[in-house]
């Protein structure tokens, strides 16, 4: 996760932050805080006779029912309706066909061909190190084997890796075709930007589990469903980066072009787009990372690939299998990340240590690669990676993980019961009893103080709407399952999980970020761990988390905490780095100690970044609330998981929407002033 989309807004906010705290500012803060405390006290006093959200307040026949009816309309009209049958079905067939062709193509290239091409591309766009890294990562798909991990019991992961690669390639291509034009449109026409922003918010916060069932209904299982789910999740950052990239091209450059009589189209094509190229490449890089983070989700709808062994490992509680498959996904992410990042650097400036290749050299290289491919395929009759060339570390990993878990169980169990009994349960009880209108008032007051009356009205509306997501009492869901769903109560439970996970992230992440800023050694040691945690699919650590903390809310909090930690650490370090050298030197010349400097100068100046860190952490924790539902945490996460696994479209959609509303509230509350375009991932 990169903070770049908000970099401009942070710069804007930074300009407003005075170096010392003036009294007027303090007063502006004190009033809302006092009001908030008063409202809380009133809430506790009044909660005796009015808890939560009235069960009888239902919109029409209930939001879940709307979606259930829509779903049954789609399923009954699917074969007769032109749009559903021809258009949607056609898109599905094209996507499925293209992916299958690409998978076959990758197999046809043979393992030698894929390895050669991956290395060559990395070398052309990057340096020697990029190329060697790419070669090692690609080779790991063959070398790190998982007994019985692939389809039909194969142990070489080359085939599943190629399936995932093809799926990613198609998903990334489609994301580019949609994301870049949309980003350009949003940058050129402000109404477009205003219209799509809430849509992008929904796409980013709505958990994939909530839209998997509709996708299966429309596209059936397999590759097309996997691609559609991936594109929905991965495209928003590209749109945002493109828009911000074009919008931040300096005015004077554009004015100069206008003075030369350039048309608007020319300015866009020849000035804004080239200058925004680096931002767009960064966006593309984000697309790749996000797409790879839902490989396992794509496997849930039958897309196959490297997500399958992760799911299979869950089924048999095979810790090692899940971990090794997760590592392979991380490796693929790192390979594509480094290569695309190198391409991004190339696009922006030519500071590479190597002289750029001439056209003739390039032609020779590609010709050579083609020759290698042809010889490998027709001459040597190679195919997938040979099964003898690799080994399995699954058993060793399983043993190691079991050993660690056993050693930690004593500590983790007492920690778990303490936190559950004395932090989570009381917080949950408190929030659960809180009258909805008092919470709305509280949110409104804070929103007013932070963003003015418009934001206050928006957020109060969101709070009320969460309650209205509920179904009427005694509603029987579409698939006639018995399940208690109270949108408000579940949202409050989820809120308690988010608060605890966020607190843990800040308490642990911010000091780690400061340490990484102060000491290079810490930074170097942390970087690979953070990279790893950021791309490791959460499904891999579900079982260890349960073994340590028992099924329940705390297991969910832990999963969310682990997932969001890298973003907290990174944003903190980045914010501190943004403090200008001269300011620090000025402080030093006044004889400040290192600690004084950090406390009095660096941290206050880095505050806008800290706000951003909090914002990012909240959104990531929200994203992980669904996974928390897979380890026994209740709330909206479990509702969405249940909606997916029972094909209850109404339940999944209503709970998903409640989650989106919650995400929007938390996001807007954690932003200062009128931040533009910075609702990051």
């Amino acid at each position: 996760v990169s903070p770049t989309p908000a970099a401009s807004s942070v710069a804007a906010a930074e300009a407003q932050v005075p170096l010392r705290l003036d009294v007027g500012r303090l007063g502006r803060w004190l009033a809302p805080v006092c009001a908030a405390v008063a409202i809380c006290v009133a809430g506790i006093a009044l909660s005796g006779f009015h808890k939560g959200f009235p069960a009888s307040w239902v919109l029409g026949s209930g939001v879940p029912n709307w979606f259930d009816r829509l779903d049954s309309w789609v399923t009954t009209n699917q074969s007769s309706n032109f749009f559903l049958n021809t258009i949607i079905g056609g898109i599905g067939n094209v996507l499925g066909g293209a992916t299958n062709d690409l998978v076959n193509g990758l197999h046809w290239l043979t393992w030698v061909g894929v390895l050669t091409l991956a290395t060559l591309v990395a070398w052309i766009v990057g340096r020697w190190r990029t190329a060697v890294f790419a070669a090692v990562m690609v080779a790991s798909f063959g070398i790190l084997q998982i007994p019985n991990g692939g389809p039909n019991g194969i142990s070489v992961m080359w085939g599943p890796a190629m399936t995932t690669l093809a799926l990613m390639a198609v998903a990334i291509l489609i994301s580019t075709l949609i994301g870049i034009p949309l980003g350009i449109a949003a940058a050129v026409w402000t109404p477009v930007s205003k219209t799509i922003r809430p849509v992008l918010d929904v796409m980013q916060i709505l958990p994939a589990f909530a839209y998997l069932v509709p996708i299966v209904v429309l596209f059936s299982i397999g590759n097309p469903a996997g691609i559609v789910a991936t594109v929905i999740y991965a495209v928003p950052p590209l749109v945002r980066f493109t828009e911000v990239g074009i919008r931040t091209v300096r005015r004077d450059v554009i004015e100069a072009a206008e003075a030369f009589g350039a048309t608007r189209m020319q300015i866009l094509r020849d000035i804004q787009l080239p200058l925004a190229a680096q931002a767009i490449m960064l966006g593309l890089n984000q697309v790749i990372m996000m797409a790879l983070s839902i490989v396992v989700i794509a496997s849930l709808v039958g897309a196959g690939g490297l997500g399958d062994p992760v799911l299979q490992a869950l089924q048999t509680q095979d810790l090692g299998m899940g971990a090794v498959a997760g590592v392979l996904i991380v490796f693929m992410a790192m390979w594509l990340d480094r290569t695309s990042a190198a391409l991004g650097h190339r696009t922006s400036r030519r500071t590479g240590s190597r002289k750029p290749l001439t056209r003739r050299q390039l032609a020779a290289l590609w010709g050579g690669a083609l020759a290698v491919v042809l010889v490998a395929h027709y001459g040597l009759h190679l195919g997938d990676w040979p099964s003898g060339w690799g080994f399995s570390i699954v058993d060793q990993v399983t043993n190691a993980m079991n050993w660690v878990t056993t050693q930690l169980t004593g500590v983790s169990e007492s920690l778990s019961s303490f936190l559950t009994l004395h932090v989570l349960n009381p917080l949950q009880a408190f929030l659960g009893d809180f009258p909805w209108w008092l919470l709305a008032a509280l949110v409104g007051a804070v929103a007013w103080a932070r963003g003015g009356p418009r934001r206050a009205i928006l957020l109060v509306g969101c709070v009320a709407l969460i309650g209205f997501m509920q179904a009427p009492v005694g509603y029987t869901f579409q698939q006639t399952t018995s399940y208690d769903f109270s949108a408000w109560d579940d949202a409050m439970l989820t809120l308690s999980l988010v608060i605890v996970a966020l607190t843990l992230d800040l308490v642990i992440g911010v000091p780690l970020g400061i340490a990484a800023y102060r000491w290079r050694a810490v930074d170097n040691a942390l970087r690979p761990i953070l990279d790893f945690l950021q791309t490791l699919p959460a499904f891999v650590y579900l079982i260890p988390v349960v073994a340590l903390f028992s099924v329940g809310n705390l297991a969910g909090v832990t999963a969310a905490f682990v997932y969001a930690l890298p973003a907290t650490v990174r944003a903190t370090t980045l914010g501190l780095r943004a403090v200008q050298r001269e300011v620090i030197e000025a402080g030093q010349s006044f004889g400040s100690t290192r600690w004084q400097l950090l406390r009095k100068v660096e941290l206050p100046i880095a505050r806008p970044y800290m706000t951003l860190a909090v914002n990012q952490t909240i959104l990531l924790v929200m994203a992980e609330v669904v996974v928390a539902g897979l380890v026994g945490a209740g709330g909206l996460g479990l509702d969405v998981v249940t909606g997916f696994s029972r094909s209850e479209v109404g339940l999944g959609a209503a709970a998903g929407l409640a989650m989106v509303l919650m995400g929007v509230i938390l996001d807007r509350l954690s932003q200062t002033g009128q931040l533009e375009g910075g609702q990051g991932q």
Partner: protein
Amino acid sequence: MKNQRRSLRFPGGRPRVTAVAALLAVTAIAAVAIAATATGAAARTNGKPTITLATNSWEGSLANNVVAQYVIQKYLHYQVNLVTIDEIPAWTAMVQGKMSAVMEEWGHSAQYSQDINKTHKVVNAGLEGPNGNIGWYVPTYLMQKHPELKTWRGVKKDWKLFVTPQSSPQGQFLDGSPSYVTNDQALVKNLKMNYKVIFAGTEAAQLTEIETDYKQKKPVLFYWYTPQYQNQIYKFSQVQLPKWTKTCAKLKPAQINCAYPPYHLYKVMAATLPKTAPSVAKFLRRFNWTAQDQNQVASDLAVKHMSNAQAAAAFAKSHAALIKSWLSAKTPYTKVEPPAFGT
């Protein structure tokens, strides 16, 4: 115009050309590869459709599938793919013709009446053999220590035994994957028990929790079922819930107050399968084995870490006559109609 455009170009333009060239070259090679394989791909399957079987999240489901896959590939010469998918999405996929069959169904009367009886997109493929049993269980060590746990009344009385930090101040009832057939929230409410139903979210999380408690001989009350190969590893005892009756079966889901019905596990397949792959459809109808057979294959896979092919081959070797009977046209097959298979 042309000159003017050139003058506007920035030095950053050139490397962009390199990048685009690289992308184009990759696309070109990929296109060549696709063109070369497009013809080969169709020939490989000999014009026969690929059979897809749904693997659900319990190990028994995989055991059924690996044996079916082995038999279909070896004797009927169709390619078989196993697709990991949840139960209800598998029905959706069968309706759309993207899934050939599901080898083990528990209940699902709503889907049965919609997709089999009403739209005829899915057909009943007969009994699988084992009888399914869903219920409330405790570890046997706990039942021996507290014999009153044999019935739900004892469980109701002993709720304090099962209090955990998560469920506090109530007792904890540990449910598994929300995708499974459960009435537990309704049961707890309607039998007026002081329990909180905690969904583990996945069967894996539930089992991890049970294992952890089992190792420390702690009390735990949970939703469980047979056939399940884990029952050979752990000793669990069932709690008697109020007897299942036809009247209770007619209640709304939220009002259920009796035990789970007996399940006769059955198979279903896409309605198009008998036309597109007649021999496979005939085999699927006759596939029938016992819970013991399934447990053997499941534990070969999960405990002994055999590959799918190894486990299936081992089973086929020791059960040659059974496999022959699945392929013989003379073998009668049992069709089952609702509500015989349960709710």
